[in-house]
């Protein structure tokens, strides 16, 4: 985007500012051509701030300014920055935000750069993780670190309950939970499944091959047999008293409760490797470990592909420099360094051969799991859909509705949420059909070039912007 373009778009949004952006305005940014602005969240922001020094030394003339943003405000801040025309050149983005940012046309496709790159090989990345960055055949971000969910458990309590190895299948898992529950007694539980997290029911459903959405992500598919079966399995853990059914408020301190044996299994993510090692009492350290998710038949069962990526703003005038920084941070050695500092797991297989990762059995469970991860639907509405899953699952857990009612209500809600998406897809198809009738040859050409579509969208956006100005 040239400066004039951006001003035009900015002007349009200022007219639109009546609606949202009025207070944000369209600030002009420092026209320093050599300073790459990078937004990173929380601890990652802190660590990357220390890592860019060496990058600046090895890339003379390029400067990096890191801005640290708290996780809780990050999503909002990115969107308001986009509306206000104050986007950074490069930023860390949660994988599930990418679809939304693509809908805003805010991201630079990285396919060509990836193909040209000497240091980055696509097939070195865990495929499920890389796939979360691919939307409509374009790669919009490069995974920075990965996140998934698997089992953390107390091996001592499991042994006391008569089981040595981690459960491999649902049947074994269910049996192990039952035995643990019997061993620990009535006022303790076998597993902690935080009610406000959508991950566990979704992971179980993915393991059975549930699509979650159907018909090109235009309708909810939660009444499907696969989702229903997974949902029943999930609810059963509450119904049988294996999991405490209260919200987060009851478990004030996960670490204290895990140490005290209030629950023995916990489905959670890599950040807890560090937290458990740090917060559990020293004498308990040999007694906890991790295992890949049990699957319907065998482990590892599919889990959810999460994490954060680095993405380049489409309107940035410093894309080349930003890309150099991406390449620098994607280097396996740097990723191991990053892992040491943050505990964030690297997305490249080659980084996992480093001793720091390969010698740690608890971390290796993640290595196994990462080969079996799947992305959630890559549409902007997903997070909202996930919040509805939580809502209806909670009602079912509390028993205020039946499973049938909960799933029907969930499908109804999700269909309503996706109405706009259906309308936009239909409109796009109608336009394509109209064009096809006018000139069939041009249409076949367009089909082959998917970039065409985004270009058209940009043209329309600028058209609207120009009208707004006039």
């Amino acid at each position, binding site marked *: 985007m040239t400066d004039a373009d951006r001003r035009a778009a900015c002007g349009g949004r200022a007219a639109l500012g009546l*609606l949202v952006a009025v207070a944000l305005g369209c600030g002009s940014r420092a026209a320093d051509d050599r300073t790459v602005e990078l937004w990173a969240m929380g601890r990652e922001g802190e660590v990357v701030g220390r890592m860019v020094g060496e990058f600046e030394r090895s890339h003379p003339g390029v400067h990096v300014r890191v801005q640290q943003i708290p996780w809780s405000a990050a999503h909002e801040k990115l969107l308001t920055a986009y509306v206000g025309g104050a986007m950074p050149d490069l930023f860390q983005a949660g994988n599930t935000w990418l679809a939304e940012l693509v809908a805003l046309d805010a991201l630079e496709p990285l396919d060509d750069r990836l193909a040209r790159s000497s240091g980055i090989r696509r097939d070195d990345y865990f495929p499920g993780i890389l796939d979360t960055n691919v939307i409509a055949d374009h790669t919009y971000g490069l995974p920075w670190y990965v996140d998934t969910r698997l089992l953390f458990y107390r091996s001592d309590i499991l042994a006391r309950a008569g089981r040595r190895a981690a459960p491999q299948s649902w049947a074994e898992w269910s049996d192990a939970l039952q035995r643990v529950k019997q061993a620990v007694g009535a006022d303790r539980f076998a597993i902690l499944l935080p009610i406000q997290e959508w991950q566990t029911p979704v992971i179980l459903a993915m393991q059975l091959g549930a699509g979650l959405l159907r018909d090109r992500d235009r309708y909810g598919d939660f009444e499907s047999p696969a989702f229903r079966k997974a949902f029943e399995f999930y609810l059963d853990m509450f119904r049988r008293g294996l999991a405490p059914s209260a919200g987060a408020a009851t478990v004030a301190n996960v670490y204290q409760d895990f140490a005290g044996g209030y629950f023995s299994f916990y489905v959670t993510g890599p950040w807890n490797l560090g937290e458990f090692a740090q917060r559990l009492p020293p004498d308990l350290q040999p007694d906890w470990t991790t295992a890949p998710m049990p699957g319907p038949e065998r482990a590892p069962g599919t889990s959810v592909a999460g994490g954060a990526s680095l993405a380049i703003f489409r309107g940035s005038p410093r894309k080349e420099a930003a890309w150099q920084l991406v390449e620098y941070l994607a280097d396996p050695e740097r990723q191991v360094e990053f892992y040491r500092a943050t505990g964030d797991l690297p997305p490249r297989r080659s980084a996992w051969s480093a001793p720091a990762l390969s010698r740690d059995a608890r971390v290796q469970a993640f290595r196994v799991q990462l080969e079996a991860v799947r992305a959630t639907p890559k549409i*902007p509405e997903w997070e909202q859909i996930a919040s509805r899953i939580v809502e209806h699952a909670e009602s079912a857990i509390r028993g205020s509705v039946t499973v049938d009612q909960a799933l029907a209500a969930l499908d109804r809600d999700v269909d309503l949420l996706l109405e706009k998406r259906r309308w936009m897809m239909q409109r796009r198809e109608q336009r394509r059909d109209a064009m096809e009738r006018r000139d069939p040859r041009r249409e076949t050409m367009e089909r082959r070039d998917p970039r065409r579509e985004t270009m058209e969208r940009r043209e329309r956006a600028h058209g609207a912007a120009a009208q707004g100005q006039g």
Partner: protein
Amino acid sequence: MELRRVPAGIWFVLPAVVLIGLFFVVPVAASLLLSLTDFDIYSIASLANLRLVGLMNYRRLLQDPRFATALWNTFYFVVVGGPLSIAVSLGAALLLSSRLVRWRGLLRTVLFLPVVTTLVAVAVVWRALYQPRYGMLNRLLAVIGVSPIDWLGDPRWAMPAIILLALWKNFGFNMIIFVAGLQSIPERLYEAARLDGASRWAELRFVTLPMLAPTFVFVTIITLIGYFQLFAEPYVMTQGGPADRTLSVVLLMYEEGFRWWNMGYAAAVAFVLFGIILTVTSVQLLVRRAEGLGGTSAGAGRSAAR
């Protein structure tokens, strides 16, 4: 030359009018327009994705079970929490004005402290108090034989827990207003009452309360408006849970607007809430005025209404 003919008064009000126009009238008009569209994340990308939907947002709102829940919760909070808060404020004010109490200045400061404390800090402490297994509140209740309550996790108890917190946090403000109201009651009225042989209860019933009527009108309206806009307490304590039992209308609006970027829908929520508050306060004023015209505090009631 032309400018001289403009009355001087215009120049005095102009800055205020411009500011109010720019920062109040324009945004309100814009959000009214917004509520008639389906403005969302796609519309931020391109205005071509914006549809004028007329009253669709309002129709959807009426059918949205979450909005019904939010409305119910908000009314619950207002109807239970509002009177309770006013009663406690009045009680505290009477206590502070009583000649029997020593260290009045200190007590007033202490009781007012929650009002000036940051809610986020308060929330941390109250979450600890409410913790079902280690929390102080349940331990105290255990002493008198009450079995533990999952204050913030049990759908039946979450709203009472929020009300209790809001009560503690906010009663100091109304208390100060009541104290001021009490101080403006002339001492001679009490003297006259005592000469007539009135008991302390009769003094309260026939002197204090009628004389406080204008203060009451003010306090009730301010409290009602404030309580209808319940947001921060559930936002920091429960995020609307468990099972949406502490989801308030404003929290729903915030979620729709700034979490999901359904700005059109959020604007519709805002206007419905505005309508409700306007209706309730108007009804209340009308009732007060009708009452006031018949009673002794007619003048006082009317002056407060103005």
